[in-house]
């Protein structure tokens, strides 16, 4: 018997694993960022690794050094930086939530600081 082979049956596409985005908690290891994120081997930071995605977003990963061997508190704790901002994000933090909380905090601080000037003795304190 001769087997007749027709056109190959279409294979179902393997779904791409999801990648991290700013709405999700940051992982505890760069390998869990997903396929959209690639390490930038040209980033020369001596203590950090940079990961970039196709949109041009940047994540810097700092692997915490063992206790007693780092240059202080943050150097000994795993953390991320998002898009070259100074803010630190711990694994499990969500960039959007933390960024919003910081922005709200700054606005509240400014409003309280300025509103308190309605109380005359407050103006004896020049800053902030």
């Amino acid at each position, binding site marked *: 018997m001769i087997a007749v082979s027709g056109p190959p049956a279409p294979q179902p596409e393997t779904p791409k694993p999801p990648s991290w985005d700013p709405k999700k908690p940051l992982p505890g290891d760069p390998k869990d960022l997903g396929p959209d994120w690639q390490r930038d081997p040209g980033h*020369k930071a001596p*203590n950090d690794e940079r990961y970039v995605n196709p949109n041009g977003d940047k994540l810097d990963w700092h692997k915490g050094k063992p206790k007693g061997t780092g240059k202080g508190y943050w150097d000994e704790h795993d953390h991320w930086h998002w898009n*070259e901002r100074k803010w630190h994000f711990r694994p499990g933090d969500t960039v959007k939530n933390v960024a919003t909380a910081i922005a709200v905090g700054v606005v509240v601080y400014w409003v309280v600081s300025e509103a308190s000037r309605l109380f005359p003795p407050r103006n004896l304190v020049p800053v902030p």
Partner: protein
Amino acid sequence: MTGPSQKWCKMTFEELEQKLPNGFHDAAIRKIQLDFMGRSVEIEMDILMAGPDDPDPELCRAGKLRMAPIYLLFIEPPDPRYSFIPDGESLKVDGDSVKVGQNAEVDRLLPTLPQNATTYRFFLEKWNAFLYLAGGGVEFFWEADQVS
């Protein structure tokens, strides 16, 4: 926390690092002033003061690093892929000791420096390049302002 009047004198960069709560990790440079006649350089910086569990983990404080006498200061060219043109914000940096083998050109310079030289380099994040420093000793002053 150290008061604004406190000054740390004549140290190596590594000794100074030990006195700062985070060393020069995630610090920032605001201004560099090089005095050829006075043989010194002053670098105004924001130093990260807090840790992850503090109420304000991003708390920074302004300080001034002075190196004298200065033996060497140079910055590598910026990486053209990076947005290196100053945008009015301080330059985020990370401190790093200079070691033989990091940069062949620097390796050739190190033996020409005076024996007492303290050497150091700052990684300039927006340049993807290093600022190299060598001098006889460093001093550090806290400034009055708290920066957050």
